[in-house]
Protein backbone atom coordinates (compact mmCIF):
# COMPACT_ATOMS: atom_id res chain seq x y z
CA UNK A 1 0.00 0.00 0.00
CA UNK A 2 2.59 2.67 0.91
CA UNK A 3 4.66 1.53 -2.09
CA UNK A 4 1.80 2.36 -4.48
CA UNK A 5 1.26 5.70 -2.79
CA UNK A 6 5.03 6.26 -3.04
CA UNK A 7 4.84 5.94 -6.85
CA UNK A 8 1.78 8.23 -6.95
CA UNK A 9 3.70 10.85 -4.96
CA UNK A 10 6.55 10.69 -7.47
CA UNK A 11 4.12 11.24 -10.37
CA UNK A 12 2.34 14.17 -8.70
CA UNK A 13 5.60 15.73 -7.54
CA UNK A 14 6.89 15.66 -11.10
CA UNK A 15 3.66 17.18 -12.39
CA UNK A 16 3.77 19.85 -9.65
CA UNK A 17 7.38 20.63 -10.48
CA UNK A 18 6.67 20.95 -14.20
CA UNK A 19 3.61 23.14 -13.57
CA UNK A 20 5.48 25.24 -11.02
CA UNK A 21 8.35 25.95 -13.39
CA UNK A 22 5.94 26.60 -16.26
CA UNK A 23 4.16 29.12 -13.99
CA UNK A 24 7.32 31.24 -13.97
CA UNK A 25 6.30 32.41 -17.42
CA UNK A 26 2.54 31.83 -17.25
CA UNK A 27 0.93 33.09 -14.03
CA UNK A 28 -2.31 31.33 -14.89
CA UNK A 29 -0.64 27.97 -14.16
CA UNK A 30 0.32 28.93 -10.61
CA UNK A 31 -3.01 27.91 -9.03
CA UNK A 32 -2.83 24.56 -10.81
CA UNK A 33 0.75 24.04 -9.61
CA UNK A 34 -0.36 24.82 -6.07
CA UNK A 35 -3.25 22.34 -6.21
CA UNK A 36 -1.02 19.66 -7.66
CA UNK A 37 1.60 20.24 -4.94
CA UNK A 38 -1.10 20.01 -2.26
CA UNK A 39 -2.31 16.72 -3.74
CA UNK A 40 1.27 15.38 -3.84
CA UNK A 41 1.67 16.37 -0.19
CA UNK A 42 -1.58 14.69 0.87
CA UNK A 43 -0.55 11.49 -0.90
CA UNK A 44 2.94 11.63 0.61
CA UNK A 45 1.52 12.21 4.07
CA UNK A 46 -0.86 9.27 3.62
CA UNK A 47 2.03 7.03 2.52
CA UNK A 48 4.09 8.26 5.47
CA UNK A 49 1.33 7.60 8.02
CA UNK A 50 0.56 4.15 6.59
CA UNK A 51 4.25 3.31 6.72
CA UNK A 52 4.50 4.58 10.30
CA UNK A 53 1.64 2.29 11.32
CA UNK A 54 2.90 -0.79 9.48
CA UNK A 55 6.56 -0.39 10.53
CA UNK A 56 5.65 0.44 14.13
CA UNK A 57 8.04 3.39 14.19
CA UNK A 58 8.59 6.70 12.44
CA UNK A 59 9.80 6.04 8.89
CA UNK A 60 13.44 6.85 9.61
CA UNK A 61 15.32 3.65 8.85
CA UNK A 62 16.68 2.93 5.38
CA UNK A 63 16.93 4.93 2.17
CA UNK A 64 13.31 4.24 1.14
CA UNK A 65 11.90 5.51 4.44
CA UNK A 66 14.21 8.52 4.72
CA UNK A 67 13.36 9.53 1.12
CA UNK A 68 9.64 9.36 1.92
CA UNK A 69 10.01 11.35 5.15
CA UNK A 70 12.13 14.03 3.53
CA UNK A 71 9.71 14.30 0.59
CA UNK A 72 6.75 14.77 2.98
CA UNK A 73 8.45 17.72 4.65
CA UNK A 74 9.70 19.26 1.38
CA UNK A 75 6.21 19.04 -0.13
CA UNK A 76 4.70 20.50 3.05
CA UNK A 77 6.96 23.52 2.72
CA UNK A 78 6.41 23.71 -1.06
CA UNK A 79 2.69 24.22 -0.38
CA UNK A 80 3.43 27.44 1.46
CA UNK A 81 5.75 28.85 -1.18
CA UNK A 82 4.24 31.88 -2.78
CA UNK A 83 7.13 32.55 -5.07
CA UNK A 84 8.11 31.27 -8.46
CA UNK A 85 10.34 28.77 -6.65
CA UNK A 86 7.18 26.74 -6.21
CA UNK A 87 8.26 24.30 -8.92
CA UNK A 88 11.76 23.59 -7.61
CA UNK A 89 10.80 21.99 -4.28
CA UNK A 90 8.39 19.37 -5.74
CA UNK A 91 11.03 18.50 -8.34
CA UNK A 92 13.61 18.00 -5.59
CA UNK A 93 11.08 15.84 -3.71
CA UNK A 94 10.55 13.79 -6.88
CA UNK A 95 14.30 13.29 -7.35
CA UNK A 96 14.70 12.18 -3.72
CA UNK A 97 11.74 9.80 -4.05
CA UNK A 98 13.03 8.30 -7.31
CA UNK A 99 16.36 7.70 -5.59
CA UNK A 100 14.57 6.14 -2.60
CA UNK A 101 12.51 3.90 -4.87
CA UNK A 102 15.71 2.22 -6.06
CA UNK A 103 16.17 0.67 -2.62
CA UNK A 104 14.44 -2.02 -0.57
CA UNK A 105 11.14 -0.92 0.96
CA UNK A 106 11.05 -3.68 3.62
CA UNK A 107 10.15 -2.31 7.06
CA UNK A 108 12.75 -3.25 9.67
CA UNK A 109 12.40 -3.06 13.43
CA UNK A 110 14.45 -0.46 15.25
CA UNK A 111 16.98 -1.49 17.86
CA UNK A 112 16.59 -0.17 21.40
CA UNK A 113 19.17 2.52 20.79
CA UNK A 114 17.04 3.88 17.94
CA UNK A 115 13.79 3.82 19.92
CA UNK A 116 13.19 6.97 21.85
CA UNK A 117 10.94 10.00 21.80
CA UNK A 118 14.12 12.09 21.57
CA UNK A 119 15.11 10.22 18.38
CA UNK A 120 11.67 10.90 16.93
CA UNK A 121 11.85 14.60 17.78
CA UNK A 122 15.42 14.75 16.44
CA UNK A 123 14.34 13.11 13.17
CA UNK A 124 11.34 15.41 12.71
CA UNK A 125 13.51 18.45 13.35
CA UNK A 126 16.11 17.10 10.91
CA UNK A 127 13.56 16.56 8.14
CA UNK A 128 11.98 19.95 8.77
CA UNK A 129 15.41 21.65 8.76
CA UNK A 130 16.59 19.83 5.63
CA UNK A 131 13.29 20.50 3.89
CA UNK A 132 13.38 24.19 4.72
CA UNK A 133 17.01 24.56 3.72
CA UNK A 134 16.26 22.60 0.53
CA UNK A 135 13.47 25.10 -0.12
CA UNK A 136 16.00 27.85 0.62
CA UNK A 137 18.35 26.40 -1.99
CA UNK A 138 15.44 26.03 -4.43
CA UNK A 139 14.49 29.65 -3.90
CA UNK A 140 18.15 30.59 -4.35
CA UNK A 141 18.27 28.83 -7.71
CA UNK A 142 15.00 30.47 -8.75
CA UNK A 143 16.29 33.88 -7.64
CA UNK A 144 19.45 33.43 -9.71
CA UNK A 145 17.48 32.34 -12.77
CA UNK A 146 14.79 34.99 -12.39
CA UNK A 147 17.22 37.79 -11.68
CA UNK A 148 18.89 37.01 -14.97
CA UNK A 149 15.57 37.68 -16.68
CA UNK A 150 14.70 40.58 -14.39
CA UNK A 151 17.97 42.34 -15.16
CA UNK A 152 16.87 42.52 -18.75
CA UNK A 153 13.57 44.11 -17.68
CA UNK A 154 13.29 45.90 -14.35
CA UNK A 155 15.36 44.98 -11.27
CA UNK A 156 12.73 45.03 -8.48
CA UNK A 157 13.33 42.69 -5.48
CA UNK A 158 11.43 39.51 -6.17
CA UNK A 159 9.25 37.67 -3.65
CA UNK A 160 11.86 34.90 -3.74
CA UNK A 161 14.60 37.29 -2.67
CA UNK A 162 12.51 38.36 0.29
CA UNK A 163 11.78 34.80 1.37
CA UNK A 164 15.43 33.76 1.04
CA UNK A 165 16.39 35.35 4.36
CA UNK A 166 13.28 34.06 6.09
CA UNK A 167 13.83 30.42 5.09
CA UNK A 168 17.48 30.82 6.07
CA UNK A 169 16.53 32.04 9.56
CA UNK A 170 13.87 29.38 10.24
CA UNK A 171 16.09 26.70 8.72
CA UNK A 172 18.92 27.76 11.03
CA UNK A 173 16.63 27.55 14.06
CA UNK A 174 15.45 24.06 13.09
CA UNK A 175 19.00 22.94 12.31
CA UNK A 176 20.20 24.24 15.69
CA UNK A 177 17.38 22.36 17.42
CA UNK A 178 18.26 19.23 15.47
CA UNK A 179 21.90 19.40 16.61
CA UNK A 180 20.81 20.08 20.22
CA UNK A 181 18.43 17.11 20.34
CA UNK A 182 21.10 14.95 18.69
CA UNK A 183 23.60 15.93 21.38
CA UNK A 184 21.01 15.27 24.09
CA UNK A 185 20.35 11.78 22.75
CA UNK A 186 24.06 11.15 22.40
CA UNK A 187 24.38 11.90 26.09
CA UNK A 188 21.46 9.63 26.97
CA UNK A 189 22.91 6.78 24.91
CA UNK A 190 26.65 7.11 25.40
CA UNK A 191 27.04 9.45 28.38
CA UNK A 192 28.76 12.12 26.26
CA UNK A 193 27.10 15.00 24.44
CA UNK A 194 29.73 15.28 21.72
CA UNK A 195 32.39 12.91 20.44
CA UNK A 196 33.35 14.28 16.98
CA UNK A 197 31.50 11.56 15.16
CA UNK A 198 31.66 12.75 11.51
CA UNK A 199 27.89 13.36 11.51
CA UNK A 200 28.43 15.85 14.35
CA UNK A 201 31.52 17.40 12.80
CA UNK A 202 29.91 17.91 9.40
CA UNK A 203 26.65 19.13 10.97
CA UNK A 204 28.63 21.69 12.96
CA UNK A 205 30.49 22.78 9.82
CA UNK A 206 27.14 23.28 8.03
CA UNK A 207 25.69 25.06 11.06
CA UNK A 208 28.65 27.45 11.11
CA UNK A 209 28.32 28.01 7.36
CA UNK A 210 24.63 28.86 7.68
CA UNK A 211 25.40 31.00 10.74
CA UNK A 212 27.97 32.89 8.65
CA UNK A 213 25.38 33.44 5.91
CA UNK A 214 22.88 34.73 8.47
CA UNK A 215 25.46 37.19 9.81
CA UNK A 216 26.25 38.34 6.30
CA UNK A 217 22.55 38.70 5.51
CA UNK A 218 21.64 40.53 8.72
CA UNK A 219 24.78 42.55 9.31
CA UNK A 220 26.55 42.67 5.97
CA UNK A 221 23.26 43.34 4.16
CA UNK A 222 23.76 40.47 1.76
CA UNK A 223 20.64 39.96 -0.34
CA UNK A 224 19.52 39.00 -3.81
CA UNK A 225 21.75 37.04 -6.15
CA UNK A 226 24.80 37.38 -3.88
CA UNK A 227 23.02 35.69 -0.97
CA UNK A 228 21.31 33.22 -3.32
CA UNK A 229 24.64 32.00 -4.73
CA UNK A 230 26.02 31.33 -1.27
CA UNK A 231 22.79 29.70 -0.08
CA UNK A 232 23.02 27.30 -3.02
CA UNK A 233 26.72 26.72 -2.28
CA UNK A 234 26.27 26.01 1.42
CA UNK A 235 23.40 23.67 0.57
CA UNK A 236 25.97 21.38 -1.10
CA UNK A 237 27.80 21.20 2.24
CA UNK A 238 24.48 20.43 3.96
CA UNK A 239 23.73 17.58 1.55
CA UNK A 240 27.25 16.20 2.04
CA UNK A 241 26.91 16.48 5.82
CA UNK A 242 23.92 14.15 5.71
CA UNK A 243 24.44 11.92 2.69
CA UNK A 244 28.22 11.52 2.71
CA UNK A 245 28.01 9.80 6.08
CA UNK A 246 27.39 6.46 4.34
CA UNK A 247 30.90 6.66 2.87
CA UNK A 248 32.51 6.76 6.30
CA UNK A 249 33.76 3.55 7.91
CA UNK A 250 31.09 2.18 10.30
CA UNK A 251 33.56 2.35 13.21
CA UNK A 252 33.64 6.14 12.92
CA UNK A 253 29.90 6.79 13.19
CA UNK A 254 26.72 5.44 14.75
CA UNK A 255 24.59 7.41 12.32
CA UNK A 256 24.39 5.05 9.33
CA UNK A 257 20.69 4.20 9.06
CA UNK A 258 20.66 3.79 5.30
CA UNK A 259 22.12 0.30 5.43
CA UNK A 260 21.16 -0.59 1.85
CA UNK A 261 22.70 2.64 0.55
CA UNK A 262 25.80 1.86 2.59
CA UNK A 263 25.95 -1.62 1.01
CA UNK A 264 25.54 -0.01 -2.39
CA UNK A 265 28.35 2.52 -1.94
CA UNK A 266 30.71 0.28 0.02
CA UNK A 267 30.13 -2.83 -2.09
CA UNK A 268 32.34 -5.69 -1.00
CA UNK A 269 35.24 -3.49 -0.04
CA UNK A 270 36.17 -3.56 3.62
CA UNK A 271 38.33 -1.01 5.33
Amino acid at each position, binding site marked *: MPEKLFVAVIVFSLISGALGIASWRRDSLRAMARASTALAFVLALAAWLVRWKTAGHLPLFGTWESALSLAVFILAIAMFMRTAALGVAPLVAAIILVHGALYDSTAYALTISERSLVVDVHSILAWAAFALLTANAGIAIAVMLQRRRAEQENAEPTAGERSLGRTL*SIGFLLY*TSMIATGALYKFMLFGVAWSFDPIETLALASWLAYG*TLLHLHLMGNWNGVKLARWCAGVFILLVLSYRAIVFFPPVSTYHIFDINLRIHVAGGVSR
Partner: protein
Amino acid sequence: MLDNALFRIRSAGVDVWPLLGSWQLSIVLMVTTAFWYVLLAVFAFLSPPHVVQSIAGLAMFWILYALLLVNTAVCLVVRGLKGLAIGTLLFHGSLFLVAAGFVLTVASRYEATYRVAEGEEFTGNEAQIVSTSAPRVLMTTAPSIRFKVEKIVPELWRDQLLFTRLEATLDGGRSTRINRPLVLGMATFLRLSGFGYTPRYEILDARGNLLESEFAKLTIFPPGRRDFIASANFPFRFYVTAGDLSATMFDVKIYRGRLLLAERVVRRTEPLEFEGLVFRIADMRYWGEFTLVRDAGAPLILLGAIIGIAGLCLKLWRRA
Protein backbone atom coordinates in the same frame (compact mmCIF):
# COMPACT_ATOMS: atom_id res chain seq x y z
CA MET B 1 61.89 56.16 22.16
CA LEU B 2 60.19 54.44 25.10
CA ASP B 3 57.41 57.01 25.04
CA ASN B 4 56.96 56.37 21.36
CA ALA B 5 56.70 52.59 21.90
CA LEU B 6 54.22 53.01 24.74
CA PHE B 7 52.18 55.36 22.63
CA ARG B 8 52.09 52.80 19.85
CA ILE B 9 51.06 50.00 22.22
CA ARG B 10 48.36 52.18 23.78
CA SER B 11 46.99 53.29 20.44
CA ALA B 12 47.02 49.68 19.25
CA GLY B 13 45.19 48.71 22.44
CA VAL B 14 42.48 51.23 21.77
CA ASP B 15 42.00 49.93 18.23
CA VAL B 16 41.95 46.28 19.13
CA TRP B 17 38.46 46.28 20.72
CA PRO B 18 36.49 47.28 17.64
CA LEU B 19 38.45 44.67 15.72
CA LEU B 20 37.88 41.97 18.34
CA GLY B 21 34.18 42.77 18.45
CA SER B 22 33.62 43.19 14.73
CA TRP B 23 31.16 41.03 12.84
CA GLN B 24 33.78 40.73 10.09
CA LEU B 25 36.03 38.89 12.55
CA SER B 26 33.03 36.66 13.41
CA ILE B 27 32.79 35.75 9.73
CA VAL B 28 36.51 34.96 9.48
CA LEU B 29 36.42 32.84 12.64
CA MET B 30 33.25 30.96 11.71
CA VAL B 31 34.50 30.21 8.20
CA THR B 32 37.87 29.09 9.59
CA THR B 33 36.19 26.83 12.18
CA ALA B 34 33.85 25.36 9.54
CA PHE B 35 36.87 24.70 7.31
CA TRP B 36 38.72 22.94 10.15
CA TYR B 37 35.65 20.84 10.88
CA VAL B 38 35.49 19.73 7.25
CA LEU B 39 39.17 18.75 7.55
CA LEU B 40 38.37 16.93 10.79
CA ALA B 41 35.68 14.97 8.94
CA VAL B 42 38.31 14.00 6.36
CA PHE B 43 40.46 12.72 9.24
CA ALA B 44 37.43 10.78 10.52
CA PHE B 45 37.32 9.07 7.14
CA LEU B 46 40.97 8.09 7.34
CA SER B 47 41.58 7.48 11.04
CA PRO B 48 39.96 5.70 13.99
CA PRO B 49 37.73 7.74 16.35
CA HIS B 50 40.31 8.12 19.15
CA VAL B 51 42.76 9.75 16.71
CA VAL B 52 40.01 12.13 15.51
CA GLN B 53 39.20 13.05 19.11
CA SER B 54 42.87 13.72 19.76
CA ILE B 55 43.04 15.99 16.71
CA ALA B 56 39.86 17.77 17.85
CA GLY B 57 41.58 18.49 21.15
CA LEU B 58 44.56 20.25 19.54
CA ALA B 59 45.41 23.77 20.66
CA MET B 60 44.30 25.40 17.39
CA PHE B 61 40.71 24.32 18.05
CA TRP B 62 40.80 25.70 21.60
CA ILE B 63 42.29 28.96 20.29
CA LEU B 64 39.51 29.21 17.71
CA TYR B 65 36.81 28.57 20.35
CA ALA B 66 38.41 31.14 22.67
CA LEU B 67 38.60 33.72 19.87
CA LEU B 68 34.97 33.05 18.92
CA LEU B 69 33.87 33.59 22.52
CA VAL B 70 36.01 36.72 22.93
CA ASN B 71 34.63 38.05 19.64
CA THR B 72 31.05 37.35 20.75
CA ALA B 73 31.58 38.87 24.20
CA VAL B 74 33.27 42.02 22.89
CA CYS B 75 30.66 42.32 20.14
CA LEU B 76 27.85 42.15 22.69
CA VAL B 77 29.54 44.73 24.94
CA VAL B 78 30.57 47.08 22.11
CA ARG B 79 27.09 47.05 20.60
CA GLY B 80 25.62 47.68 24.03
CA LEU B 81 23.76 45.01 25.97
CA LYS B 82 20.73 47.25 26.43
CA GLY B 83 20.44 48.05 22.77
CA LEU B 84 20.38 44.42 21.67
CA ALA B 85 17.24 42.42 21.03
CA ILE B 86 16.56 39.97 23.85
CA GLY B 87 16.59 37.05 21.39
CA THR B 88 20.06 37.98 20.09
CA LEU B 89 21.31 38.38 23.64
CA LEU B 90 19.90 35.02 24.75
CA PHE B 91 21.23 33.13 21.74
CA HIS B 92 24.74 34.57 21.89
CA GLY B 93 24.79 34.41 25.69
CA SER B 94 23.85 30.74 25.57
CA LEU B 95 27.08 30.03 23.65
CA PHE B 96 29.00 30.91 26.83
CA LEU B 97 26.94 28.45 28.86
CA VAL B 98 27.52 25.70 26.30
CA ALA B 99 31.26 26.50 26.22
CA ALA B 100 31.42 26.49 30.06
CA GLY B 101 29.60 23.15 30.05
CA PHE B 102 32.10 21.57 27.66
CA VAL B 103 35.08 22.94 29.61
CA LEU B 104 33.58 21.53 32.82
CA THR B 105 33.03 18.20 31.09
CA VAL B 106 36.65 18.06 29.94
CA ALA B 107 37.90 19.02 33.42
CA SER B 108 35.71 16.88 35.63
CA ARG B 109 33.86 14.09 33.82
CA TYR B 110 33.96 10.74 35.61
CA GLU B 111 32.92 7.46 34.05
CA ALA B 112 32.96 3.95 35.47
CA THR B 113 31.61 0.65 34.23
CA TYR B 114 30.28 -2.04 36.55
CA ARG B 115 29.11 -5.57 35.97
CA VAL B 116 26.30 -6.62 38.28
CA ALA B 117 24.13 -9.73 37.98
CA GLU B 118 20.42 -10.17 38.71
CA GLY B 119 19.88 -10.44 42.45
CA GLU B 120 23.31 -8.96 43.19
CA GLU B 121 23.95 -5.73 45.05
CA PHE B 122 26.55 -3.29 43.80
CA THR B 123 28.86 -2.47 46.66
CA GLY B 124 31.87 -1.08 44.83
CA ASN B 125 33.66 -4.41 45.14
CA GLU B 126 36.67 -4.61 42.82
CA ALA B 127 35.31 -7.72 41.17
CA GLN B 128 32.28 -5.71 40.05
CA ILE B 129 34.28 -2.87 38.51
CA VAL B 130 35.18 -3.24 34.84
CA SER B 131 36.76 0.16 34.26
CA THR B 132 37.05 3.68 35.63
CA SER B 133 38.10 6.81 33.83
CA ALA B 134 41.47 8.43 34.34
CA PRO B 135 41.61 11.22 36.94
CA ARG B 136 40.76 14.72 35.69
CA VAL B 137 41.73 18.17 36.91
CA LEU B 138 38.52 18.88 38.81
CA MET B 139 37.49 15.32 39.51
CA THR B 140 37.51 14.71 43.25
CA THR B 141 36.35 11.28 44.36
CA ALA B 142 34.31 8.62 42.63
CA PRO B 143 30.60 9.00 43.38
CA SER B 144 29.49 6.66 46.14
CA ILE B 145 26.51 4.67 44.97
CA ARG B 146 24.73 1.46 45.95
CA PHE B 147 22.05 -0.38 44.08
CA LYS B 148 20.66 -3.87 43.73
CA VAL B 149 19.70 -5.37 40.40
CA GLU B 150 16.27 -6.96 40.71
CA LYS B 151 15.75 -8.01 37.12
CA ILE B 152 17.17 -7.64 33.62
CA VAL B 153 14.80 -8.11 30.69
CA PRO B 154 16.24 -8.59 27.20
CA GLU B 155 14.00 -8.95 24.14
CA LEU B 156 15.28 -9.72 20.68
CA TRP B 157 13.62 -9.21 17.30
CA ARG B 158 12.57 -12.46 15.59
CA ASP B 159 15.38 -14.41 17.24
CA GLN B 160 17.88 -12.13 15.56
CA LEU B 161 20.72 -10.22 17.12
CA LEU B 162 18.69 -7.04 17.38
CA PHE B 163 17.54 -5.84 20.76
CA THR B 164 14.04 -4.41 20.91
CA ARG B 165 14.15 -4.17 24.70
CA LEU B 166 16.87 -4.26 27.31
CA GLU B 167 15.85 -2.93 30.67
CA ALA B 168 17.10 -3.33 34.23
CA THR B 169 14.88 -3.01 37.27
CA LEU B 170 16.74 -1.89 40.37
CA ASP B 171 15.72 -1.77 44.01
CA GLY B 172 13.31 0.93 45.06
CA GLY B 173 11.27 0.53 41.88
CA ARG B 174 13.94 2.30 39.81
CA SER B 175 14.75 1.22 36.28
CA THR B 176 17.19 2.08 33.53
CA ARG B 177 17.88 1.10 29.96
CA ILE B 178 20.57 1.86 27.42
CA ASN B 179 19.03 5.13 26.26
CA ARG B 180 17.27 6.16 29.47
CA PRO B 181 19.82 6.90 32.19
CA LEU B 182 18.74 6.89 35.80
CA VAL B 183 19.47 10.17 37.56
CA LEU B 184 21.23 9.33 40.82
CA GLY B 185 22.10 12.81 41.95
CA MET B 186 23.37 16.14 40.73
CA ALA B 187 24.71 15.42 37.23
CA THR B 188 25.19 11.74 38.08
CA PHE B 189 23.66 9.18 35.78
CA LEU B 190 23.53 5.39 35.68
CA ARG B 191 22.48 3.46 32.60
CA LEU B 192 22.40 -0.12 31.49
CA SER B 193 25.01 -0.28 28.75
CA GLY B 194 25.59 -3.99 28.23
CA PHE B 195 24.36 -7.44 28.92
CA GLY B 196 25.55 -10.99 29.38
CA TYR B 197 24.88 -14.40 30.90
CA THR B 198 25.58 -15.52 34.44
CA PRO B 199 25.29 -19.30 34.58
CA ARG B 200 25.33 -21.12 37.89
CA TYR B 201 27.53 -24.14 37.37
CA GLU B 202 27.78 -27.19 39.58
CA ILE B 203 30.50 -29.76 40.03
CA LEU B 204 29.27 -33.02 41.52
CA ASP B 205 30.97 -36.26 42.43
CA ALA B 206 29.95 -39.64 40.93
CA ARG B 207 27.32 -40.15 43.65
CA GLY B 208 25.70 -36.80 42.96
CA ASN B 209 27.08 -34.92 45.95
CA LEU B 210 27.53 -31.21 45.28
CA LEU B 211 31.20 -30.21 45.47
CA GLU B 212 31.08 -26.70 44.05
CA SER B 213 28.40 -24.30 42.92
CA GLU B 214 28.92 -20.68 41.85
CA PHE B 215 27.53 -18.01 39.58
CA ALA B 216 30.00 -16.91 36.93
CA LYS B 217 29.58 -13.76 34.84
CA LEU B 218 30.58 -14.88 31.38
CA THR B 219 31.01 -12.87 28.20
CA ILE B 220 29.45 -15.48 25.92
CA PHE B 221 26.93 -13.14 24.32
CA PRO B 222 26.42 -13.04 21.37
CA PRO B 223 26.51 -16.76 20.57
CA GLY B 224 29.88 -17.84 19.27
CA ARG B 225 31.91 -15.95 21.87
CA ARG B 226 33.84 -18.12 24.26
CA ASP B 227 34.64 -17.52 27.91
CA PHE B 228 35.77 -19.79 30.70
CA ILE B 229 34.95 -20.68 34.28
CA ALA B 230 37.93 -21.36 36.51
CA SER B 231 36.98 -23.74 39.31
CA ALA B 232 37.65 -22.33 42.77
CA ASN B 233 38.52 -25.73 44.31
CA PHE B 234 39.76 -27.90 41.45
CA PRO B 235 42.37 -27.47 38.72
CA PHE B 236 39.75 -27.40 35.94
CA ARG B 237 38.74 -24.80 33.40
CA PHE B 238 35.37 -25.01 31.70
CA TYR B 239 35.31 -23.23 28.34
CA VAL B 240 31.75 -22.31 27.42
CA THR B 241 30.19 -21.04 24.20
CA ALA B 242 26.45 -20.28 23.98
CA GLY B 243 24.78 -22.17 21.16
CA ASP B 244 21.76 -19.90 20.77
CA LEU B 245 20.54 -16.41 21.67
CA SER B 246 18.48 -17.57 24.65
CA ALA B 247 21.42 -19.61 26.03
CA THR B 248 19.68 -22.96 26.34
CA MET B 249 22.51 -24.90 24.67
CA PHE B 250 26.22 -24.68 25.31
CA ASP B 251 29.37 -26.02 23.75
CA VAL B 252 31.47 -27.02 26.79
CA LYS B 253 35.13 -28.00 26.77
CA ILE B 254 36.79 -29.09 30.02
CA TYR B 255 40.54 -28.75 30.48
CA ARG B 256 43.02 -29.65 33.16
CA GLY B 257 46.08 -27.69 32.23
CA ARG B 258 46.30 -28.15 28.49
CA LEU B 259 44.71 -31.55 28.56
CA LEU B 260 41.22 -31.71 27.04
CA LEU B 261 39.14 -33.91 29.34
CA ALA B 262 35.68 -33.65 27.81
CA GLU B 263 33.87 -31.80 25.04
CA ARG B 264 30.19 -31.81 24.21
CA VAL B 265 27.17 -29.68 23.39
CA VAL B 266 24.89 -29.78 26.42
CA ARG B 267 21.52 -28.33 27.29
CA ARG B 268 20.85 -26.47 30.51
CA THR B 269 20.98 -28.88 33.52
CA GLU B 270 22.34 -31.68 31.29
CA PRO B 271 25.32 -33.41 32.98
CA LEU B 272 28.74 -33.71 31.37
CA GLU B 273 30.98 -36.36 32.90
CA PHE B 274 34.75 -36.04 33.15
CA GLU B 275 37.42 -37.69 35.31
CA GLY B 276 34.83 -39.21 37.65
CA LEU B 277 33.07 -35.88 38.20
CA VAL B 278 30.03 -34.20 36.69
CA PHE B 279 29.77 -30.65 35.36
CA ARG B 280 26.45 -29.02 34.63
CA ILE B 281 24.93 -25.59 34.15
CA ALA B 282 22.14 -25.66 36.69
CA ASP B 283 20.70 -22.17 36.43
CA MET B 284 20.99 -19.04 34.34
CA ARG B 285 20.71 -15.37 35.16
CA TYR B 286 21.65 -12.22 33.31
CA TRP B 287 24.29 -9.70 34.23
CA GLY B 288 24.09 -6.09 33.28
CA GLU B 289 26.89 -3.72 32.43
CA PHE B 290 26.09 -0.44 34.15
CA THR B 291 27.84 2.79 33.20
CA LEU B 292 28.02 5.52 35.79
CA VAL B 293 28.66 9.03 34.50
CA ARG B 294 29.16 12.12 36.59
CA ASP B 295 29.32 15.10 34.30
CA ALA B 296 28.79 18.52 35.84
CA GLY B 297 29.03 20.09 32.39
CA ALA B 298 26.07 18.21 30.91
CA PRO B 299 23.30 20.21 32.67
CA LEU B 300 25.03 23.46 31.63
CA ILE B 301 25.19 22.33 28.00
CA LEU B 302 21.51 21.37 28.10
CA LEU B 303 20.55 24.68 29.71
CA GLY B 304 22.64 26.56 27.15
CA ALA B 305 20.96 24.71 24.28
CA ILE B 306 17.48 25.47 25.64
CA ILE B 307 18.26 29.16 26.14
CA GLY B 308 19.90 29.38 22.71
CA ILE B 309 16.90 27.86 20.95
CA ALA B 310 14.54 30.05 22.96
CA GLY B 311 16.59 33.07 21.92
CA LEU B 312 16.39 32.12 18.23
CA CYS B 313 12.62 31.54 18.53
CA LEU B 314 12.20 34.92 20.18
CA LYS B 315 14.26 36.62 17.51
CA LEU B 316 12.24 35.04 14.72
CA TRP B 317 8.96 35.80 16.47
CA ARG B 318 9.94 39.46 16.90
CA ARG B 319 10.90 39.72 13.23
CA ALA B 320 7.67 38.09 12.04
